């Protein structure tokens, strides 16, 4: 009798477990479901433009809401060049800082510096943009552009009037925003390199730098590549700070001093005021392009970082 009672009362408990597990699983499933939902929602809302322009959308340069012709080539150009510029500045600095943080820094200084890097990442984009508008733009106009023009003015890259706003300033602002990610992730993957690797190199008589170059960096290579891709995806999708300093002119110019425009910036500036279904759909279509590219880069980056940090690979059997 007692035992039968126990068995009977075990049932609700097991049902409770089952239901609770399903609740938790449902919430965990939110991540993949939302990513799918974003894609579906954007495809539906952008469909009129997708149907009308197809693949031509990404290779034509006319952006004319009045005539109803839309092509985002200048925006793609602006997005890619400003991000590349940012990587060019942020990658060497970020890697250097990561090597310092993972290999050289005195132990008591590591946490404070890592915290400061974290703080830089925590500053809202619009605040970086504000600083860009009031400090960086005047400085680029009065100091950096003239210096570059006088030293390297024979290159088309540094020709034209120094406006302050433009591709160069956007690249600078972006590099400030992505460098914390490069530092944080690279430091993490370098810390994950086994001690034995370093000790083996040191035992062969390598100096500190030789150990880093021959034992640490090759081992952490794929993780560092992941860190760079992660930063690239951030740069491509960064909106506010770029909008505030790039000048927002949809053109393709060789000069880095010239104003440009990016995909996130055009969505930010024009979406709320866009009139007409096709105009809205075209902006959403631009969002689809941005979404697909950044998700693909992010997925690749995460796989690289995870492999380097020794975590489980995606869906390993």
């Amino acid at each position, binding site marked *: 009798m007692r035992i039968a009672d126990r068995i009977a009362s075990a049932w609700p408990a097991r049902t409770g477990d089952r239901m609770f597990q399903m609740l938790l699983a449902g919430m965990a499933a939110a991540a993949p479901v939302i990513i799918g939902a974003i894609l579906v929602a954007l495809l539906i809302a952008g469909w009129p433009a997708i149907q009308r322009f197809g693949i031509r959308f990404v290779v034509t340069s006319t952006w004319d809401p009045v005539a109803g012709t839309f092509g985002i080539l200048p925006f793609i150009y602006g997005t890619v060049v400003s991000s590349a510029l940012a990587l060019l500045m942020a990658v060497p600095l970020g890697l250097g800082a990561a090597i310092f943080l993972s290999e050289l820094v005195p132990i008591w200084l590591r946490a404070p510096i890592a915290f400061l890097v974290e703080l830089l990442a925590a500053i809202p984009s619009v*605040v970086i943009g504000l600083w860009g508008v009031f400090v960086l733009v005047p400085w680029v106009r009065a100091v950096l552009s003239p210096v570059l023009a006088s030293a390297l003015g024979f290159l088309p890259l540094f020709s034209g009037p120094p406006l302050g706003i433009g591709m160069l300033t956007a690249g600078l602002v972006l590099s400030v925003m992505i460098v914390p990610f490069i530092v944080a992730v690279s430091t993490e993957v370098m810390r994950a390199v086994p001690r034995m690797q370093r000790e083996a190199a040191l035992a062969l008589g390598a100096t500190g730098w030789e150990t880093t170059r021959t034992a640490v960096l090759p081992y952490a290579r794929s993780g560092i590549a992941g860190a760079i891709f992660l930063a690239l995806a951030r740069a491509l999708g960064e909106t506010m700070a770029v909008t505030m300093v790039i000048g927002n002119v949809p053109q393709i110019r060789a000069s880095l001093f010239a104003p440009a425009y990016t995909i996130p910036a055009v969505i930010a500036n024009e979406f709320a005021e866009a009139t007409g279904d096709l105009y809205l759909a075209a902006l959403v279509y631009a969002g689809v392009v941005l979404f697909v590219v950044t998700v693909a880069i992010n997925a690749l*980056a995460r796989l690289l970082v995870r492999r380097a940090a020794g975590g489980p690979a995606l869906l390993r059997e």
Partner: protein
Amino acid sequence: MMDRRYWFRRGKDRGMAVLTFLCTIAVLIPLFLVLGFLVRTGASALNWDFFTKIPGAAGEPGGGMANAIAGTLLLIGLAALVGIPVGVLGGTFLAEYPHARLSQLARFTADVMNGIPSIVIGLFAYVLIVLPMRHFSALSGGVALGVMLIPTVMRTTEEIIRLVPQSVREAALALGIPTWKTTVRVVIPTAAAGIVTGIMVGLARVAGETAPLLFTAFGNRFWNWNILKPVAALPLQIFAYAISPFDDWHRQAWAGALVLVTIVLIVSVAARVASSRQAKLR
């Protein structure tokens, strides 16, 4: 000959050490430049009106951002309602069933989701809520921020719950407590302090987001507590004032940025202190 070679290698080692140190300084310089700029400009523009008044007419000096501060609090509240339950419960699943196929997939997609541009999240909330309702609303802005909150909360919750010792779970199970009750009453409370810290950091981050609010919460020059109407937000107001042609609005943008960054910094430092204290207790 040997000797010279040695000195060369040694010099290179020292040189690289100095170089990486300089890189670290260079990475941190912008942080101090931005903070210095905010303190220099924002502090002089901050006054009582800033916290108590709503914006004045365009171009006229005076007015404040009281409604924007309230709007940001409203948006954060809505974001918390969306993001915390999903994030905490989802993160609990990841920690308690770490090897389930769903966990592997969710962990990966949460990381990827973290990298989706915020402007795209804004488009998503627009299509999901603004389009069917036919007008901008605080609700859509809150949902956008909530979606951005989910991956952060999920992954930090997972990390914290994983730190709960297995013996704590076993003690509860040995008393005959069902698994679900063990999780709810024993495991989550044990990890609660860390989870709350993670949530605070996540909320502070989304509080500074502007892009997802541009065409969802939209902004409002007046007070509004109705979640179905457009609402002002601090970052939106900073953006609008920064690109305006008026000096007084520029000053208010600096003041707003100072307030926003102060909040983010206080929360980050508090979280850092709290988590190092928790680490010591362990």
